[in-house]
């Protein structure tokens, strides 16, 4: 079985896939893995070519928009090192079957890609609800988060239409990545050193209102913390305004 290696980046993975699909008559029989720089590592290394990666992705989008979105969500999960062969086989199936490929769940590669992508998609949807902004002294709003998947880009896109008249920041604490929306421009960047800015004067008052609402809206006779935790896992509580009062 032939073995290929790439440099571990997303661009590297896509350009390797593009190369293999072009050169290999039977891509389903090929293994693709991340290079680990060990002494006797076997395999043929494929150079990263950002242009090739981009051209492959735009071809994917053209051929099968839904499946291309699945690949995008899969990349956000940042697990491609473990599943690079699966992605190769998935892309090769995609060119045969188009968007129907996502229904081929009995195929192990499809199942791998779809289940990772689905997890990322679920977290993205969850964060659209669970993200909490705090109003700062200068009138801007800041939301901190620590999601498992790197979802800041699609999340920022959601808020750019929803809160478009508002000046806001998203900050991924673990990845040190921030998004900034101001005067109709959305920017992304990394933050080396983060200092929490001062809150606006009325912020604590609004937070107390929300905490009160959160408490009283629950029906005491129906208390069910298990259900609450399964819908809203505790790993998200750290930045939830309503969970700070407890």
């Amino acid at each position: 079985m032939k073995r290929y290696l790439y440099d571990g980046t997303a661009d590297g993975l896509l350009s390797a896939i593009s190369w293999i699909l072009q050169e290999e008559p039977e891509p389903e029989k090929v293994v693709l893995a991340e290079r680990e720089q060990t002494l006797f590592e076997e395999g043929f290394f494929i150079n990263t070519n950002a242009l090739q990666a981009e051209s492959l992705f735009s071809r994917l989008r053209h051929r099968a928009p839904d499946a291309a979105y699945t690949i995008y969500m899969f990349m956000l999960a940042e697990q491609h090192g473990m599943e690079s062969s699966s992605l190769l086989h998935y892309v090769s199936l995609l060119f045969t079957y188009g968007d129907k490929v996502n229904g081929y769940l009995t195929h192990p590669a499809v199942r791998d890609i779809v289940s990772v992508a689905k997890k990322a998609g679920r977290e993205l949807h969850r964060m659209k609800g669970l993200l909490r902004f705090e109003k700062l002294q200068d009138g801007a709003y800041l939301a901190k988060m620590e999601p498992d998947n790197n979802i800041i880009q699609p999340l920022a896109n959601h808020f750019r239409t929803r809160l478009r008249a508002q000046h806001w920041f998203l900050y991924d604490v673990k990845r040190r990545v921030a998004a900034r929306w101001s005067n109709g421009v959305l920017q992304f960047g990394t933050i080396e050193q983060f200092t929490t800015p001062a809150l606006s004067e009325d912020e604590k008052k609004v937070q107390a209102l929300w905490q009160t609402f959160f408490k009283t809206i629950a029906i005491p006779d129906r208390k069910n913390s298990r259900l609450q935790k399964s819908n809203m896992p505790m790993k998200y509580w750290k930045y939830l305004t309503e969970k700070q009062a407890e």
Partner: protein
Amino acid sequence: MDILAKLQILSGAARYDASCASSGSKREASSCGVGNTSQSGICHSWSDDGRCISLLKILLSNDCRYDCAYCVNRSSNLVPRASFTAREVVDLTLDFYRRNYIEGLFLSSAVMQSPDVTMERMVRVVEALRTEEQFGGYIHLKIIPGCSSELVRKAGLYADRISVNIELPSQVSLQRLAPQKSKAAILEPMKLIGQEINTSLIERSTSRRAPRFAPAGQSTQMIIGASPENDFQILRLSQGLYKKMHLKRVYYSAYVPVSEDNRLPALAAPPLLREHRLYQADWLLRFYGFTAEEILSDDLPNLDETFDPKTAWALRHPEFFPVEINRADYATLLRVPGIGVTSAKRIIAARRFSAITPEGMKKIGVVMKRAKYFITSSGRRFEKHDQTPAIISQQLLLGEARVVEPPRQLVFPGLYSCQP
């Protein structure tokens, strides 16, 4: 009274309304305003009772003229009373929305001086949100039965969803427990809303600039367990509401004893299992192609507590099974216990590529716990021997191992109660 105290009273009074959906409406954000809506709806938190919070759910006032026995806000109940001003509700909604606490507003109210006065004040709040603040988030507005049709029309133009609560499943119960309400006064606005929604849909199909009327449709709610109706009556009522009035949702709310009244049953706890079974049956009506008459009958007027309604139906209809998963159409697959909308779609998508084996079913994520007794794959059964409904129900209840092997351990009566 300060705003925090008001919020405490008026959200506490609104919590028995079950609806919190924020889906079904696609409203674009305006350039200078705040907010849009999401087609699939978004939950923003889950309260201590495990229910989703997506809307700021409050009453405009809990100062009620009516004296409905089941209601916490009835006039004879000694609770603190409060009312919001329109400005207070608008500010709360915007403050919460800007911080992403909520998807929008759910506004209901006790009946103040009259239905018209109350409804007018409620409409004024949403009018201010939509026109002055350009608020594009989700709004669910309650209609007060007995208010003028002009106000109903106005409400539908501003809100995404409007709802009239049917409260109790029959006119008799309504008369007994809520003497100031009548079935006619409840059904009349429902009919009007249904007509307006239809008209708006037709107009919008020819002109995109035609006004939208309650784009997320109308819903209603009834209280379960406060009156003697059986499940069959309730399901037939829901079926009628879905078919004739085109409602989007009927909500069932297990009666929580909020007052002592000799017209009400004494309940140790809210009938949550019954509520759960009614929701399952409701799903069968809306998404699974079942009719109320298939699920229940005059001889069998109440839902089974042990089995979900679909399993109960399947056990009564052995002639329908087994279903061949590689050939059955979508509607037939949906009738298999344990196979829902998602699983049925996945089966149909996957069998385009190759026949699905028992292992394949697990791979595509179908839960086999119940389904395995009712299906074949390419003619082969999933279970070794022939199954009669009696054996299947026993196995579903106890798990297979227990059926084959009699218990060898000492059994302490009452410690593990397993009722057949």
